[in-house]
């Protein structure tokens, strides 16, 4: 065996060592030596010169400690390194000549340990004067910043920035931790949670926000361990990190209202208890299986009952070495095919889909550009249609181009679609918090969480959904005692489900609570004078009354549902997103909110109507019906304006041509068409010349210059390349009332 490389590496380290100025090792020299030592270690292990390997490891260790300023006696440290290099030379030389080393390096290794062991009294090192090589605070707990340092950077705008950024980071933590709950092994998620805590700690240490810094530090440590695999990601860990994030939010928000409060703990926040829990999680290493067990999957799939599974588990306990699948097959409970399917499912849970992350701005830009392409394409087509000399081939090619651009547009809008899962997870978190506060036990069931929706819609629909959830937890579900009395299980169920229907995503939120109280709704409706008589209304019509302002039936205002936000506000919010909301309820069995939203805000399903030469697009979701008013149904009462009677209801008449100053084809209502449109809890009858047809159009903003046009929410290029304006019913109604 050749030891030439080994002696060569050691010699070059030794010669570098000779060139050191003074008896101190600076960073670049330390870097060089560490790299030398890595080389030596690898080579020594390769040629089995174990004593050399041992020495090089010890020297690397001393250098590491040196770098973080934990070698207090630099003189002895320097001497030890020197000695170590010579010793390596001696040992390697001996290997080269005899293939072995007769001496003992144990004494030297022991000396290294003593050097480090004796020299690490931490407090002493910290007070020592700033050393030459590196100025470092001791590892471990972060040091308190000297007051002056904090004051120097402590200015108000910095604190404001910190509050905003920290809140954003904490929100990020919440989302990511719910992802982590689904995939406890995913290092990327752990990292995504670790990093914000880390950053918050860093800035807090500069701003002298001791309480925030310490809490963030504790959480960061816990996650660091999870990241390194020293700590299993368990439900208690998730809980404590979530609570930690909440506590941080409270602390940061406190700064928002009172910038001087950085050293006080807000009332009601038990940081000591939280810290104790963090410690408990760190100490107790509970193990949870990373993936679902085969038996669980089989039960979930409905292949076997839990009892059968238990029987099978008992069998394998008696016969060690058998697997659950085998046991169940031999008992005839399952077929081998069912087991193999379940096994495949088990593996699928772990394997990741091959995906890449793309910045949403890039996607938005691309989708915008595709939108422009579609418009330009239709303009080209229009020009050709008008031209007399259109070439047959050209026409055919253009038709092909049209198909491709449409396909491209569909594909590109699809790119921005994400599963509703994340939203559901956030809501399940909310239910957890809310039910705790209300003293109820609630289980959340989800269905269809893979249903996709436009990324830009996700944030928009969140608030209305939250209100419905609050409503369900607070008013829908009974307290455990009442549930038992009603013969239900103590645990209430909130069910979230999503599916696609037409161009919409339907989201249902249902509870198995007490159901809506029809009598109470009717009482309130009569009291508020929205209803004259209680008779003649179907159940569905009665339930729909809760969407009217001031008809919330809650007996008391609680801190959960809050005050003021009734179902009328929810309905408005849903409609603003061009969605629809319905309610279903069975007394004693529960209530279901059924909401449907368009999949994307980029495309609108509309009815094209004509007024004079202009065309407008009315959102289909807002249209109740279209009719030709009769002379008899028209009424003009002084002071109340014009009305049309539609199915026994008097609806205000809005003449679109008047609002927009156009010359119409028809001015008499009985010659024109009336379209009943709903918006902002009002219904009115719009007078138009003609209904042209239905169309799905891509919404284009009108640009900065035309941002706040009353009654118009945007524009669209119609099939013939002309622009049609999209009507915003609520805005239009406001506009008409102000006229």
């Amino acid at each position, binding site marked *: 065996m050749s030891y030439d490389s080994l002696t060569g590496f050691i010699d070059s380290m030794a010669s570098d060592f000779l060139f050191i100025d003074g008896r101190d090792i600076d*960073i*670049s020299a*330390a*870097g060089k030596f*560490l*790299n030398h030592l*890595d080389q030596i270690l690898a080579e020594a292990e390769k040629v089995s010169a174990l004593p050399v390997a041992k020495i090089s490891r010890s020297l*690397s260790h001393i*250098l*590491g*400690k040196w*770098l*973080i*300023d*934990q070698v207090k006696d630099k003189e002895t440290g320097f001497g030890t390194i020197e000695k170590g290099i010579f010793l390596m030379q001696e040992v390697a030389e001996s290997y080269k000549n005899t293939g072995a080393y007769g001496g003992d390096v144990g004494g030297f290794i022991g000396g290294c340990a003593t050097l480090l062991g004796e020299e690490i009294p931490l407090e002493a090192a910290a007070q020592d004067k700033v050393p030459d090589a*590196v*100025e*470092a*605070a*001791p*590892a*471990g707990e*972060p*040091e308190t*910043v*000297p007051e*002056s*340092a*904090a004051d*120097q*950077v402590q*200015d108000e705008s*910095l604190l404001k*920035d*910190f509050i905003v*950024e*920290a809140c954003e*980071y904490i929100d990020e933590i919440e989302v990511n931790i719910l992802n982590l709950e689904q995939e406890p092994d995913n290092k990327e998620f752990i*990292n*995504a949670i670790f*990093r914000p805590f*880390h*950053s918050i*700690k*860093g*800035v807090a*240490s*500069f*701003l002298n926000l001791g309480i925030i810094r310490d809490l963030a530090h504790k959480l960061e440590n816990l996650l660091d361990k999870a990241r390194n695999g020293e700590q299993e990601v368990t439900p208690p860990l998730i809980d404590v990190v979530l609570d930690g994030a909440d506590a941080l939010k409270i602390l940061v928000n406190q700064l928002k209202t009172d910038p001087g409060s950085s050293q006080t703990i807000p009332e009601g926040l038990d940081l000591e208890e939280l810290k104790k829990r963090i410690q408990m999680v760190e100490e107790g290493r509970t193990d949870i299986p990373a993936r679902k067990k085969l038996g669980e999957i089989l039960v979930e799939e409905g292949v076997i009952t839990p009892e059968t599974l238990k029987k099978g588990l008992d069998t394998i306990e008696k016969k060690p070495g058998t697997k659950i699948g085998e046991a169940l097959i031999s008992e005839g409970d399952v077929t081998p095919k069912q087991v193999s399917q379940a096994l495949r499912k088990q593996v699928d849970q772990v394997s990741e889909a091959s995906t890449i992350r793309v910045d949403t701005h890039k996607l938005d830009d691309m989708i915008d550009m595709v939108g422009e392409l579609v418009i330009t394409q239709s303009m080209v087509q229009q020009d050709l249609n008008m031209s007399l000399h259109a070439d047959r081939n050209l026409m055919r090619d253009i038709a092909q181009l049209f198909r491709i651009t449409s396909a491209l547009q569909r594909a590109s809008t699809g790119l921005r679609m994400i599963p509703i899962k994340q939203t559901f997870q956030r809501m399940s978190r909310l239910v957890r918090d809310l039910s705790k506060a209300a003293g109820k036990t609630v289980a959340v069931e989800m269905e269809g969480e893979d249903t996709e929706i436009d990324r830009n819609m996700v944030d928009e629909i969140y608030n209305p959904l939250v209100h419905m959830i609050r409503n369900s937890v607070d008013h829908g579900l009974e307290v455990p005692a009442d549930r038992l009395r009603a013969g239900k299980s103590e645990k209430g169920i909130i069910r979230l489900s999503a599916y696609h229907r037409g161009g919409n995503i339907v989201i249902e939120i249902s509870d198995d609570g007490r159901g809506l109280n029809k009598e109470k709704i009717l009482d309130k409706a009569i009291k508020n004078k929205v209803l004259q008589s209680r008779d003649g209304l179907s159940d569905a019509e009665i339930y729909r009354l809760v969407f009217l302002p001031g008809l919330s039936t809650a007996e008391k205002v609680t801190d959960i549902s809050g005050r003021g936000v009734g179902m009328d506000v929810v309905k408005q919010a849903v409609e603003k997103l061009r969605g629809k909301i319905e309610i279903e309820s069975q007394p004693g069995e529960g209530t279901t909110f059924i909401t449907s939203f368009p999949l994307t805000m980029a495309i609108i399903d509309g009815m094209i109507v004509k007024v004079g030469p202009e065309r407008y697009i009315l959102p289909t979701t807002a249209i109740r019906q279209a009719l030709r008013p009769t002379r008899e149904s028209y009424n003009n009462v002084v002071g109340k304006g014009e009305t049309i009677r539609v199915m026994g209801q008097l609806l205000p008449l809005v003449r679109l041509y008047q609002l927009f100053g156009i010359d119409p084809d028809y001015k008499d209502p009985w010659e024109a068409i009336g379209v009943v449109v709903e918006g902002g809890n009002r219904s009115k009858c719009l007078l138009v010349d003609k209904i042209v047809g239905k169309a799905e159009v891509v919404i284009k903003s009108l640009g900065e210059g035309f941002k706040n046009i009353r009654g118009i929410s945007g524009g669209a290029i119609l099939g013939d390349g002309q622009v049609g304006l999209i009507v915003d019913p609520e805005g239009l109604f406001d506009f008409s009332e102000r006229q």
Partner: protein
Amino acid sequence: MDKSIKILIVDDFATMRKVIRNLLKQGGYENIVEAEDGVNALKILKSQKIDFVVSDWNMPNMSGLELLKAVRADEELKALPFLMVTAEALQENVVAAVKAGVSNYIVKPFTSAVLDEKIKKIMEKM
């Protein structure tokens, strides 16, 4: 020492960049640019002349250590002074940075005086 050197701050946390910027300004350094991660830092380093880098250790996309390695591996940038900002002096991390050729490291939180001292010492050796 020349205080007009152009310093690049790399940190994903905007407030942190502002903190370091303020500290540098207190030390008399005015010529400062920022990047929010290693990838953007490299872009800046390639497109303009930077004299000094102050980089955070823990960042998404490309960590401070990866940035350092990329800088040292680049023929034009390999001698660039590089100061690493870390949260604590962990031996493992410091050793990795030193092996990769970091000019020095500094532990959060620090004062403008300590930062100035570090920069001066590194620049003197250039």
